[in-house]
């Protein structure tokens, strides 16, 4: 019996050493596992959150559109229009046909819109936010580029310029 207990003790020692080695190797690896397990969905959300928090989309003239170009894109229906503002502002008023991909709730909104967006990574996309100095559209655009969307541009005039021009708007949660 004592011999058996000693054998069990030795197995426990091996298990503890294996745990220590496992954590040590994990710490030294390039992509260490977090101590608390995350489901694939949680990891995807975390990845999206990191993406949208990354340095924003570089603003160059060929990556931005002015009001006229934006207006024709909205009327043409061949471009996906994304509103990067928080949902509360989207519900108060947005550009007709625009989908809400809020920068502050990017992971959740992206997961909701992925079935619409992902099938065609080359479809033109224009992102807008409030306008003026807002960065939400640039951050969302940067994240979309990182996710593989190839034709992403930003309407820098944003909601302020669109609504000030007296162009049509829509209220509520629907595009």
């Amino acid at each position: 019996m004592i011999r058996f207990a000693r054998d069990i003790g030795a197995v426990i020692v091996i298990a503890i050493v294996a745990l220590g080695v496992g954590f040590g190797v994990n710490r030294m690896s390039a992509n260490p596992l977090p101590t608390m397990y995350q489901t694939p969905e949680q990891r995807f959300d975390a990845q999206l959150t990191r993406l949208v928090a990354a340095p924003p989309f570089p603003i160059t003239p060929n990556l931005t559109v002015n009001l006229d170009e934006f207006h024709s894109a909205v009327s043409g229906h061949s471009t996906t229009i994304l509103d990067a503002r928080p949902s509360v502002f989207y519900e108060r008023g947005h550009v007709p046909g625009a989908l809400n991909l809020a920068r502050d709730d990017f992971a959740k909104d992206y997961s909701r819109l992925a079935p619409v967006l992902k099938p065609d990574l080359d479809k033109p996309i224009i992102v807008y936010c409030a306008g003026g100095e807002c960065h939400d559209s640039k951050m969302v655009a940067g994240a979309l580029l990182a996710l593989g969307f190839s034709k992403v541009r930003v309407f820098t005039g944003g909601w302020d310029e669109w609504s000030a021009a007296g162009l049509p708007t829509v209220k509520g949660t629907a595009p």
Partner: protein
Amino acid sequence: MVSGRIADRQGNCTMNREGNLHSYTLITVSVILAAIFIYAGVEKIRSPLDFADNIQGFAILPLALVVPMALALPFFEIASGLLMLTPWTRRVAALGIAIITAMFIVALGSALARGLTLDCGCFGVGAPSRTRMWAELGLDIVLFAVSLSIYLRLFIGSQASAANNALAA
């Protein structure tokens, strides 16, 4: 008298031959077990994240224990495999292998009973399949039986030699 001695010698020879045969079988089986567990451990180390997902798929362990299990188990398997290779540590290694295979049998059996279709991650990453789960359950039962019989044989042998030493003293 002479014929009695000859009979004794023949008996000893037969016993030695049987003993050698048992030793060779034990060594061969131990090397096979060692190879299986070292291979299984190395395969799991190559992709710890996938192995953690596999463990979580069984929905048995609390979330806090999934990563520690995913990190420790491969090294435990490798250590047990290596320790199977030396006669001094074989008994403990066989017990370690019997314990983890018993654990795998319970996990796979319960997953099959609950109707889950998983990739158990036993020998690296694969597609989820119930056929594979049944095959791996069968393999685990064989590995459990073999490792337990090695342990019991070595355990009883060590008990007997300890008793002989006590008598001689």
